[in-house]
């Protein structure tokens, strides 16, 4: 019973926020201040969402198909970006020289919005899948590398000393003590890598006039002046984002609760 109540108490602020937003939106729509072709009503958007979720309207694909295409790109891009970023981060953590050289490159790269790589990527790879993937990969590498390196450097020295006095050395020490101790910081890096990768992907799909994906669907709807459908696709982007974010939240909380890093609420 109390469990139901605690779920409700967590849920109602979110529901209230969404309800408030929809209400304001509806009021603005009802006043007729904006042309109704420019600003559709919440109901029209929901209708467009329902109409096009499963059903493709050629030349536009369905929202579901576009979501699938975008998620596949995201997963492939992140898999490569996280792998490379992790390797670079480990190298940065192990060698001061690599940290100073590659590490500063990573900081510089992070300051550069990844979408600014797209013009170059298109020249290098053409209007292909690879150009979009490149932007996702380049967005995620520095976040992962910097988080991996700094979380390893911040491992409490006492734990390393304890491991050494028990006879753990080199690779064993690294694998059994240093890496597990660095996990919470690394997860934070993955979280920001996914967020950066997702933004880069949407921008990439929007600009590169590919032929599928949520970003592309946005642009296709714009060309046909279908504002309701634009809103519907944006809604889908938010839903995907919140879903992934919530998944990371659960993992992060589990890891931290296990280690006593979570304040009791």
């Amino acid at each position: 019973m109390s469990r139901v109540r605690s779920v409700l108490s967590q849920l109602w602020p979110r529901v209230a926020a969404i309800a408030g937003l929809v209400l304001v939106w509806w009021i603005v729509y009802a006043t007729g201040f904006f042309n109704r072709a420019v600003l559709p009503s919440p109901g029209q958007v929901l209708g467009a969402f329902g109409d096009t979720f499963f059903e493709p309207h050629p030349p536009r694909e369905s929202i579901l198909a576009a979501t699938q295409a975008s998620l596949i790109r995201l997963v492939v891009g992140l898999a490569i970006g996280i792998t490379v970023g992790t390797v670079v981060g480990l190298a940065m953590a192990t060698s001061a020289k690599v940290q100073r050289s590659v590490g500063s490159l990573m900081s510089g790269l992070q300051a550069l919005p990844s979408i600014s790589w797209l013009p170059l990527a298109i020249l290098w790879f053409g209007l292909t899948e690879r150009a979009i993937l490149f932007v996702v990969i380049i967005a995620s590498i520095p976040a992962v590398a910097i988080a991996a390196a700094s979380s390893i450097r911040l491992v409490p020295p006492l734990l390393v000393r304890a491991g050494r006095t028990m006879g753990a050395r080199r690779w064993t020490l690294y694998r059994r003590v240093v890496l597990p101790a660095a996990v919470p910081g690394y997860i934070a890096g993955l979280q920001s890598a996914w967020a950066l990768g997702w933004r880069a992907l949407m921008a990439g799909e929007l600009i590169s006039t590919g032929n599928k994906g949520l970003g592309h669907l946005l642009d296709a709807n714009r060309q046909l002046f279908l504002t309701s459908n634009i809103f519907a696709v944006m809604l889908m982007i938010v839903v995907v984002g919140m879903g992934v974010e919530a998944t990371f939240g659960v993992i992060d909380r589990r890891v931290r609760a296990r280690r006593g890093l979570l304040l009791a609420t």
Partner: protein
Amino acid sequence: MRAEPALSLVPDLGEAPAKLSAGGVSKSFRNARGGTVSALVEIDLEVRQGEFVCLIGPSGCGKSTLLNLFAGLEAPDAGDLRIDGEPITRPGPDRAVLFQDPALFPWMSVLSNVEFALEMIGVAKAEREERAMQWLRRVHLGHSANAQPHELSGGMRQRAALARALACQPEVLLADEPFAALDAQTREILQRELQEVWSETRNTFVFVTHNVREAVFLADRVVLMSAPPGTFVTEHRIDAPRPRDFEDVLLSKVVVDIHAHLTREVDKVVAREVRP
């Protein structure tokens, strides 16, 4: 041993061979301003097989440094350190260490922490759980084996650290003020438990503390270190039979003696600190 006249003559421990030895050991550190701070100056110390030695001294006297040198966590600037006559070059499970912080791995259960120590000394996987549980029961933690370290009280965590150290089956136990962060009651309980366990295992033990009562209660020999840079001032042999009692009048007398000595060393430190 270079020393001022000792309060009590220390009888030789007889024929027991030196388990640990430090000869002419010096160590200094670089401070934040780039200067050099001398922590230990030409220290000689021998610890016999099965002997319980407490190092005591004012803060900054280098007692923890000496312990880290024996542990192999640091290297001396001069002099040599040996275990069984072999030079100490790096840390190893033959010299288990108890730190002031229990230093349990927070991502592992209490049981897994002890199993980790067993794994490091090459105990087969099938045997680990059983043996880890034996050590945990020994320190009255059998019921908390599956808890995470953060779920335990400070005293229980330090017990778990003791179980982990003992599980290494070390020849030497090194302890760096392991009970300093505990409240007075818990500390006394753990001192009794440590005495109990040690009476059975009889590991060679070097125990750093700044608590004279604790030192006298636990040790065969209490070595008093000087104001920094650390050298040895005097040492006391505590011959009282075990199990000992905190209320023992003879022990209390030794405590008073050592305390007087320690106070003098602490006064020197304070005088140096307040001098303009």
